[in-house]
């Protein structure tokens, strides 16, 4: 369960500041590693955290697109797990060190395995748009990176996504909250909210049940229905003002984060990608196959 999972113990952070600090540190670590190797480099050659974020979001979108056209259809939890792996990996590693294209495929390969969505490796690479020889090569690369990915995840492979908590909340609403006549109307908007939340940092900041509750409450307020009494009566929070206020605060922050996410502009993406390729051409010796 989530309350005694490794996700709660090791991969929940207090605020966006902590996350930014980690990413900044990863960036600095890569820079100092290259500086220490003695090559004469100019500082402008490196990517700064903003550019890294641009590329990160671009590849994240590509990951989700890849999973959506995947045959057989990938369940939502597998997609969520893959995105979370991607996010966690680049929390402690710089994009300049390992190219996101291969990491993205490795993440989805690993999440298929972990979430027991059985696809053979040939079936997996068959979904890429490439010649069979190219697919073989990609498969080799995926297998090479798999262990590194697991290691950088600190071997914490179980991810709790918010999809099942959302189902649970809907069931609970139907059973215990007759004031809401048809909670099914909330499902579609809540789903949409969850999809948008997956590509933000909310998974690293709040528990999946909180995210699901935010989704449900958000869609209820959009539809104009009030659900305050659900929290106070059914959840037993009538007397516990402190927990209630903290919960509301967390939910507000999540909503805000989700709203302010936007896809980066294509020109910016192209520019950052070029810079990234240059970095790879200069420094990486292990990425020659890309």
């Amino acid at each position: 369960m989530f309350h005694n999972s490794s996700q709660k113990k090791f991969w929940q952070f207090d605020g966006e500041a902590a996350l930014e600090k980690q990413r900044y540190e990863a960036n600095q670590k890569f820079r100092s590693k290259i500086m220490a190797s003695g090559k004469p480099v100019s500082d402008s050659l490196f990517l700064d955290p903003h550019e890294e974020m641009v590329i990160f979001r671009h590849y994240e979108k590509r990951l989700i697109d890849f999973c959506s056209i995947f045959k057989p259809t990938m369940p939502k939890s597998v997609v969520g797990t893959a995105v979370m792996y991607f996010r966690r990996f680049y929390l402690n590693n710089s994009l300049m060190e390992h190219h996101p294209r291969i990491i993205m495929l490795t993440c989805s390969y690993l999440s298929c395995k972990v979430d027991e969505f059985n696809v053979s490796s040939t079936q997996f690479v068959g979904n890429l748009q490439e010649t069979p020889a190219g697919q073989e090569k990609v498969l080799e690369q995926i297998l090479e990176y798999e262990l590194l990915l697991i290691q950088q995840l600190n071997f914490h492979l179980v991810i709790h996504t918010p999809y099942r908590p959302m189902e649970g909340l809907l069931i609970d609403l139907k059973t215990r909250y007759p004031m809401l006549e048809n909670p099914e109307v909330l499902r579609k908007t809540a789903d949409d909210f969850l999809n948008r939340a997956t590509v933000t940092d909310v998974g690293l900041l709040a528990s999946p049940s909180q995210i699901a509750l935010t989704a449900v409450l958000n869609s209820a307020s959009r539809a104009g229905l009030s659900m305050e009494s659900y929290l106070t009566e059914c959840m037993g929070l009538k007397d516990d003002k402190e927990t209630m206020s903290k919960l509301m605060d967390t939910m507000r922050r999540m909503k805000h984060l989700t709203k302010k996410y936007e896809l980066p502009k294509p020109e910016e993406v192209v520019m950052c990608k070029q810079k990234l390729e240059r970095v790879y051409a200069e420094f990486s010796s292990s990425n020659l196959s890309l």
Partner: protein
Amino acid sequence: MDDQGCPRCKTTKYRNPSLKLMVNVCGHTLCESCVEMLFVRGSGNCVQCDTPLRKCNFRVQLFEDPAIDKEVEIRKKVLKIYNKREFDFPSLREYNDYLETVEEIVFNLTNNLEVERTRQIMEQYQRENRDVIQRNKVKLTREQEELEELLLLEQKSTEERRLELLEEEKRQLHAKRKNKQALLDELESSQLPACVLLAQHKDRAVQLEQQIEKQKQAVKTTIFSTGIPMGQTVSLQPVPEIREVLYHHQPLYIYTHGPPVPELDQLQRLGYLNHVRAASQQDMAGGYNSGLACHRAVQDAFSGLFP
């Protein structure tokens, strides 16, 4: 060592002094290799007296005269049955009578006189005194164990004493050497005249010797050789009872950081199962029921909800 050879291959005994003679129940000997050869099928007849024998009954000879070995074997078997002790008998005379019967039996069996009758007597005795025999057998094994333990203890204590003595000697030697070295150093470095230093050194050496003597005498005996410490009075109080804290089962409580989840068996009653897809016949055959999925979903929805 041995003046007789193996009755069969005669020469082999002199050629190979490590070869052993084996004795059987009939009292005749055979060397090891002859035993292997003759009894390759497990059983056969004795060379000299032609009694049917088994290979497993051959034992390594301990005494020069094979007849003695035979008697020793028979005595062991008889004494297993006739195992009464002196205090089992009310008077000395009766004990001696008992012993005489035992000797007669052993003599008869060894020299093959009235074997049948003797065996019958033995069987009769065994039937009559079955429980006494059993009791005495148990006592015997216990005594043997105690003896073995005492032997082990003795061995250990002698070993320890020996090691201590060695240590002591080493220490003394070391002290003497240090003393000599100290004298040399002083002669080298000190300002006093040599005769004064020599006198000092002699004093110190004498003191050391006296110390050693005193130490040797100081080892007082504190225990008797049987292990009872001197001056101890035997206390007749009962052994104190040791009571430990009783184990109390506390049910496991896991903090879920969220509202309480209804129990699995309550789900039907509370109406949760109406909102879950019902399990088909195929699903239920494997042991699945819709309550399981419902419970899991609700658990996940409530776990970690409160910050």
